[in-house]
Each structure stands twice: as C-alpha cells, then as structure tokens.
C-alpha cells in the first residue's frame, strides 16, 4: 500500500492504523502529535480505529514551544 507520509511517498504494509503508522514512523510522544489525514484533522481518539488506505496522505504536526 502506497501512502504519502509527511510529503514522502512510501510502501507500507496493509491493515495499518494511524496508531501503527505513528509507531512505524517512530514518532516521539505520539499522544501529543496532531495528525491530518487527507487534509482533515483527525481526533486523537480516532488514531486506533482509523485504517489507512491506498494513496492516503498523512501529516504529523508537532508541538514546538520555544521562542527563547
């Protein structure tokens, strides 16, 4: 299954949930990452149950706090 993750097209195994994708991509502290799927915000409660499909596009948006 081909997905576009953070702008890069890559092959992924089938039956992948958003939670599993966060693991596969080694996203740190996934509970504080915002995910958009095909240009829609995804609620955190939906990560476990949302199955990704061919050609989906996923973005991870990270908290960045400093201004120092």
């Amino acid at each position, binding site marked *: 299954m081909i997905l576009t993750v953070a702008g890069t097209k890559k092959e992924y195994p089938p039956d992948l949930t958003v939670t599993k994708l966060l693991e596969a991509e080694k996203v740190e502290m996934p509970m504080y990452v915002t995910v958009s799927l095909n240009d829609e915000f995804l609620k955190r409660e939906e990560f476990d149950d949302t199955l990704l499909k061919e050609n989906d596009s996923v973005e991870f948006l*990270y908290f960045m*706090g400093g*201004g120092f």
Partner: protein
Amino acid sequence: MSFSNEQMTRYSRHIILKEIGVKGQKRLMEGRVLIIGAGGLGSPAALYLAAAGVGVIGIADADEVDLSNLQRQIIHTTADIGRPKVQSAREKMEAINPDIKVNAYQTLAVADNILDLITDYDFVIDGSDNFPAKFLINDACVIARKPFSHAGIIRFQGQLMTYVPGKGPCYRCVFDNPPPPDAVPTCRQAGVIGAMGGVIGSLQAMEAVKYLAGAGELLTGFLLTYDALEMKFRKVKLPDKAGGCAVCGEHPAITKPFDYAPAVCNIEP
C-alpha cells in the same frame, strides 16, 4: 504622508520593489506591530521591523537580559546584562531608525492584560517561549480578530504559521490544548541553535511586512517547518479550521482569554 529626502533614501530598497513601492512603504510607516517576547524570535523580528520603518512597534517582555541569552538574542549586548529586555531592545530599535515609535511593556502577557496589549496593533508576533503564552496569544488574537504570526523553535528545528481572522485555522485548531508541563521539551534544557531564532524570527517579520504592505501570500492555512540538520523547509498544508475549535469554531467554549498554569522547568540551567 509625504516622504522626506532622508526617508526616500532610507527606504529606497523597499520603494524600488514593485510589490512595495511608495504605497507599501507608506503602509509600513502607518503600521503598528506588537512583538510579544524580546528573545530569540523577538530580537530579529524587532530589528527588521524597526529597520523597515514600521511606524509603531510594541515590545512586551518581563525579563532582564541574562548572559545565557546572548548566544541568540541578538538585540541585546554584553553591556545590557541585568537590564530590562524591553529597554535594551527599544534602544537598539531607535538607534537603527529614529523614525519609528517603540512602546516598551515590561510585563508578562497574561489573561488580565493581553487584550489591552494587542488592541492598538494591526499585527501581533508571538515570540513567546512557552505553551501557556502561545495559547493565550492565540485565543486573544482570535477573540479580538487580530492577525498574528505564531512560531516555535527548539534544537535544530523551527516552525511558523500565520492566523488571519476568517482565513484558515488558528493555532488551537491544530493543537487543541497545551501538552502537560514537561511532556514536550520547552525549556532551557532542550537547547536551540542561535541562528534558528534568526531564521524563524525573520520569517515572522516577513509575514508582518507582507501583511502591512499587502504584498504576496501569507502563511495562512500552512505550517512552514524548518529542519536545519537536514536543511529542509516544508510548507505543510493545514486542514481548514476545525469546526469544533474551542476558540474559533462555530460554538466557541472560550470567549475570553485565560491563563494556563505556567510550565515548570525542572532541570537546572
């Protein structure tokens, strides 16, 4: 407003640009920008906006200059250590450009004063260094319908987005609540490369200049991310605003600014 010979010379490199011209420069000189935080992001933003001739620039910060600031907060010098940051910043800005007026607010932006702080300004730059302040600035700007530039920097990374009322998502649409204190590195122990403030703070100044002059496209509906180690910029498209957003959504639960508990930095500097 007609330009003096000195102003024509001072701003000639702006005026010659077809996207700015005399008209755009006049708009900059009539413009009012508030910078919250005179630190890593606020320093370059303040210097460039002063140099650009933005008519009134407010700068808000409660802190004094510390030796550990000087690696990145380029508006302050070694001789300023111990002095209020806003006073130090104002002197440099006025030295660059005596044409402008600088309002220095030596205060923390909090729920009680934020609406008063932003009210007289056309555009706000969030150069704060913590999540409670970033959410406060977002909420206040959404409520008061003020455009603003949000940014964050850490280690070798930075990102920014621009909010304009009625156009695209706000910061809270993207991040619905601040992370718990200490969950995400925000404090001094994480470190940041000094030039990161220069890159991202200058981009915030660029957004303010474009907004005032009416030039080009703003970063509304996009998050621009920068990874210095990979030397990669990405302009990430953001979804349209979250319908259920607590502050800019259809039935906002947040109708006035409020303070989150300040993050505690539990690691020694």
